[in-house]
């Protein structure tokens, strides 16, 4: 109580100092929430791509497809030593023709549900409700959590896929799908997906084939890529190299290349959080040091008195440290709550679920950091107070 009253004695000064910390912790919370969001996204990517080999057509420009492969290629890949399973992949954008806006997440997509996924992948998918789309199902879809939230879908609703763009061409085709299942959030790519059977994914893909090709190719023989799962103990990079050597029409990407790409992306966000924390450290810390130094110099006689009546160095040190830590705590809680409110509002206004993820770890970090910051910044003034000579302090003017 005495600590609160001491702080309250200098309302303006205490408030200004607290605001300094609030700003720092607010920045830390919002930047941290963004970093947590991307960390989760990237962790999912590392978990998934780290134990699969992504295969695309040899002429495609990236490991994520872009060209077409023939379905029959799968059996050639299957024969490569060390391959446990190969799944076809057919992926398309869920919102064709939409101007590509700056999106810091995974854009909504439509893809075939990989029946091998949960058996082999380290990143597991599960249903929040409904059932899985089967191999033979037609016009049924399982929606990722963000996808479902964006279109306010629940099991039993219907949705036209792909989503019709506002400036749709006259020949635009889509199909009504029944939502049969909603996935639990994974905080990563599958949340933005609409999963249909391979047949339906090929049908949608066939609709978007260039006019020149229509009638010349069978869309049900085309896939946009393949996912290879290895037998236990197989080195995936070596497996990718073997696939490239034995199946010349495809290009298998080494998982380590993808994982390191994700990791370097993660490093950027870690840097952002660290920078925000440093900002908090500088702004908040210096104002706490200043406030506490002023507080100590104003209360020299009080310190002298306390020492005269039996307070030891440790007592004085603790009292001033507690005061500084309390400034940190108040600033930390307020800054964190402001950050939480802002990120919640921004997430709410973003149809696909938002860019911020406030985890319990981030909460503990933000508030713990603020308290530690206060205490560390208060250390120098507190030591100065605790070391004071009682006689000089008592007679100070």
């Amino acid at each position, binding site marked *: 109580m005495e600590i609160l009253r001491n702080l309250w*004695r200098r309302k303006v000064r205490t408030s200004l100092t607290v605001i300094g910390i609030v700003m720092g912790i607010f920045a830390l919370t919002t930047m941290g929430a963004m970093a947590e969001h991307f960390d989760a996204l990237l962790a999912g990517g590392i978990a998934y791509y780290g134990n699969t080999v992504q295969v695309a057509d040899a002429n495609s420009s990236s490991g994520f497809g872009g060209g077409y492969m023939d379905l029959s290629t799968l059996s050639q890949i299957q024969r490569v030593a060390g391959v446990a399973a190969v799944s076809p992949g057919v992926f398309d954008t869920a919102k064709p023709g939409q101007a590509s806006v700056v999106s810091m997440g995974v854009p909504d997509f439509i893809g075939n549900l990989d029946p091998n996924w949960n058996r082999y992948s380290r990143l597991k998918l599960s249903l929040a409700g409904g059932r899985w789309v089967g191999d033979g199902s037609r016009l049924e879809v399982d929606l990722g959590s963000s996808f479902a939230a964006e279109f306010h879908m629940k099991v039993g609703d219907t949705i036209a896929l792909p989503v019709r763009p506002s400036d749709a061409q006259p020949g635009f085709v889509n199909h009504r799908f029944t939502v049969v299942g909603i996935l639990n959030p994974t905080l990563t790519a599958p949340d933005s997906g609409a999963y249909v059977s391979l047949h339906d994914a090929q049908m949608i893909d066939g609709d978007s084939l260039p006019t020149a090709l229509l009638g010349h190719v069978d869309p049900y023989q085309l896939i946009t890529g393949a996912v290879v799962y290895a037998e236990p103990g197989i080195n995936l990079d070596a497996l990718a190299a073997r696939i490239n050597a034995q199946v010349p029409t495809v290009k298998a990407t080494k998982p380590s290349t993808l994982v390191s790409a994700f990791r370097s992306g993660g490093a950027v966000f870690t840097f952002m959080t660290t920078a925000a924390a440093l900002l908090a450290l500088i702004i908040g810390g210096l104002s706490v040091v200043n406030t506490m130094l002023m507080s100590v110099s104003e209360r020299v006689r009080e310190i002298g008195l306390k*020492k*005269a*009546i*039996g307070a030891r160095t440790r007592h004085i040190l603790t009292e001033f440290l507690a005061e500084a830590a309390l400034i940190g705590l108040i600033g930390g809680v307020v800054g964190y709550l402001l950050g939480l409110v802002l990120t919640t509002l921004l997430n709410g206004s973003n149809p696909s679920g938002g860019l911020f993820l406030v985890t319990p770890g981030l909460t503990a970090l933000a508030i713990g950091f603020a308290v530690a910051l206060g205490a560390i910044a208060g250390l120098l003034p507190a030591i100065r107070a605790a070391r004071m000579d*009682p*006689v000089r302090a008592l007679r100070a003017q």
Partner: protein
Amino acid sequence: MPTLRLEGLTKHYVRASQVVRALDAVTLEIQQGEFAAVVGRSGSGKTTMLDCAGLLMRPTAGRVLLDAVDTGRLGERERAALRSRRIGFIFQEFNLLPTLSAIENVLLPLRYSGADRRAGRRRAEMLLEEMGLAERMGHRPAELSGGQQQRVAIARSLIGEPTLVFGDEPMGEVDTETAEMLLSLMRRINRESRVTFLIVTHDLDLAARADRIIHLHDGRLAADEAVGRAVGPCAALAVGAR
């Protein structure tokens, strides 16, 4: 055995490369239950003597014995513990904490001595009642008069049940009438609970109401007399001790 014995107490300061002899070989004894006044002109060493005897300051030479314990041999922790358990202080400017109520100010020393809080609170209430402040316990210092504030400070000096109370001009900031009242209060406590008082004052009329008057002059013991009967000039004693 005296409760307090000062032996050849000496304190030198260096100020602007000049050695100032604030206290020069003062030797005296204070018996349990005495009420002694220390008088002398400004700069005579009264406060320095009190600071050394109250274990707030270490002397340059000489010894301070509290119940025959040589306090010079104790570390800062033990000296702080002795201050909180054995010694009470009353200051000229009261030195109450402005953010604490009267009773919280009285209880402050117990925070550092680790005494039982509940028993302490009862004792604090009792002390404030004795001081005539039963109605003012929850008031902050700013809401009290000078005399009331000093009574709170006296109660604070007594909360740890000390055997020795040091007062540095405790009546210096109040009017004559209040000073009389405060002195009567301290004398009554001295009589009733046998607490030893050593009070620094420049007011000879107030000093005359003590059992004993110790005169300091230029840091030396100039005279030491029992009120009513002269003990005799003690300069000889001081010189003899050197």
